[in-house]
């Protein structure tokens, strides 16, 4: 058994927990084909006022992780172990009633597709009022007043009138603003944003990211930002967790990750995206192959079948042994057998990144 599970804060041996702290969180689902290990040992810590980006592709476990933090998995369908502390409450073991009191109050969530995430049969206002009244005896008029002022705060013009409109009469950007208003109406301390701008156009995306940053400062929120878009990460995150095959493969401060990526999967992600600043004729360097099946993970390193650098590691360790998350630098860990020197030099070659001093 590897001792990879300790989170940064508990590792120090202190009793003080971070506002949000995951410790060896595992989520698996029993299916007809076998057990899907969607999240396999995720640990990180996040304080209020900071943004943690979880980056990965479909099947990396990033969305499953975020829903586990909200306690949204049905306990019947999902087997969850480890810990996810939100403000001292362990979501994994908390009783349903306590979870419900936390959700929408201390922690809130926004989703990728605001149209399908809002109920089509209720007005936006009614859905906001419902969120208020779910957490306390608030008179309807008072709840409605709060709904209007929140809609106004997130930049919906004519909020007093539009509060009675249905979601489908809003534009995509306005719908996401309404979702944000609904999530923040009870002033939560933790916001989980699951691909909040993926369905939006770039100009709208820029506005929404800006709005989220403003509101974060205003409410001193911790934000978990789930995304596949490295540009969104570069723009908004303080810390980054890169996930692959249900596990964390690299984590660190955002500048560290972008300047000194230390794991071949992170390199692959970076070189797959066309670089607007680089020469246009430059060929993309995709990651070959397909993401792994979460039922039959490869032996050894989970990224091994798609990794172009395994020959740099002696004795075929990548094929037989699961690497641990090991420190690259202060607060920067990577799950890779390459030596520190190899990580530096190969990264420059793989991504064209240069170390920023």
């Amino acid at each position, binding site marked *: 058994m590897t001792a990879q599970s300790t989170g940064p804060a508990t590792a120090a041996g202190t009793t003080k927990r971070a506002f949000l702290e995951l410790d060896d969180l595992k989520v698996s689902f029993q299916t007809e084909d076998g057990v899907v290990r969607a999240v396999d040992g995720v640990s990180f810590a996040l304080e209020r006022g900071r943004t943690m980006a979880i980056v990965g592709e479909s099947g990396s476990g990033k969305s499953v992780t975020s829903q586990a933090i909200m306690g949204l998995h049905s306990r019947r369908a999902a087997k969850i172990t480890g810990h996810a502390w939100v403000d001292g409450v362990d979501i994994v073991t908390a009783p349903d009633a306590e979870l419900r009191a936390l959700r929408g109050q201390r922690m809130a969530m926004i989703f990728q597709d605001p149209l399908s995430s809002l109920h*089509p049969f209720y007005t936006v206002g009614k859905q906001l009022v419902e969120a208020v009244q779910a957490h306390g005896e608030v008179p309807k008029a008072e709840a409605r007043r709060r709904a209007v002022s929140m809609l106004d705060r997130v930049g919906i013009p004519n909020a007093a009138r539009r509060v009675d409109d249905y979601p489908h*009469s809003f534009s995509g950007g306005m719908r996401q603003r309404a979702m944000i208003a609904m999530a923040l109406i009870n002033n939560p301390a933790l916001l989980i944003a699951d691909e909040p701008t993926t369905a939006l156009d770039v100009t709208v995306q820029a506005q929404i990211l800006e709005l989220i940053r403003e509101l974060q400062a205003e409410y001193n929120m911790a934000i978990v930002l789930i995304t596949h878009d490295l540009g969104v990460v570069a723009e908004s995150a303080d810390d980054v967790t890169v996930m692959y095959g249900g596990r964390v493969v690299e984590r660190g401060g955002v500048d560290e990750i972008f300047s000194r990526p230390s794991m071949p999967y992170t390199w692959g992600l970076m070189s797959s995206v066309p670089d607007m600043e680089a020469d246009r004729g430059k060929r993309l360097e995709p990651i070959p192959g397909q993401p792994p099946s979460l039922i039959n993970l490869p032996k050894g390193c989970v990224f091994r079948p798609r990794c172009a650098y395994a020959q740099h590691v002696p004795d075929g360790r990548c094929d037989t042994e699961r690497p641990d998350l090991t420190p690259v630098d202060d607060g920067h860990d990577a799950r890779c057998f390459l030596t520190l020197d190899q990580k530096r030099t190969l990264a420059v070659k793989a991504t064209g990144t240069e170390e920023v001093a």
Partner: protein
Amino acid sequence: MLGFVVKRLGAMVVMLVGLSITVFLLFSVLPADPARLTCGKSCTPDVVQANRVRLGLDKPLTEQYTTYVKGIFAGRTYNEGQGVAEIDCPAPCLGYSFSQQKPVTELITEAVPVTMWLALGSFVLWMAIGVTGGVIASLNRGRWLDVALQSTALVLYSLPTFFVGLIMLIVVIVQFGLLPYPDYYPPTQDFPKFFDTMLLPWLTIATASAAFYVRLTRTQMVETLGEDYIRTARAKGLTERAVTVKHALRAGLTPIVTAAGLDLGLLLGGAIIVEQIFNLPGVGRLAVGSVIDSDLPVITGVTLVAATFIIIANFVVDLLYMVIDPRVRLS
């Protein structure tokens, strides 16, 4: 929105007119001669001919149809100025049954309340059982309760109505004497007796229908429970009850309301088997009796009324769509 209602109303009127023409034509091309049926076995051809003229059956079909329609709105008088006793048929006149010596409208208005009580009672019963059962099954998806509910529903759904009705009749009434023998008592006259005699007919109809609605509701709920907005509702911290009823069930209601409206409309046109078994003088039994007697005016009238119920039910369902789904209202 108003345009939508007006349009649907217009469509409804057009359908009713088309329907009445079709029914009228259908019954006039039947081999049975309505004039022949106006008098008994010892009829002479002379009398038949005389009756034919009296009833206007010698006139062209279009004229017969206009007379018929006029009768519905203004009433008509049979044998007018024929030297025989005049028969008055006040509006809405759907014809006159010579074999029962009564206007068709009167026969139908006597039968409709019976069928209405039968239909409404069983409707409430099956909707309550069916939707609740479906919701419970969907919330326990894959567990034994779901499997039990679904298989019970399947078995009950496949049992024919006459079988369920007869079994209930034999077991509950004949064998154990738990309820009085079937007959019809109007609720205004003797409510406890009305209830006792209606209970089994209600249950009989509700059995198969509830089974169908368990399955329909379950399918709908399973689908809507997987929607993104259900996840949002949970993320807001709503209780499971609010998530299930206010969000999931509400969103899955459209097909359930459609089926329910049409089923009710269909049932109001007569529950032939159940009315026969339980001796209820409803529209279904009137229809059967008139077919056995070849009482053409009654058959025509019952067909028209039953079809009208279905068309009205359709219209009501369309209106309910607008209540349920704001997207329909606005588009």
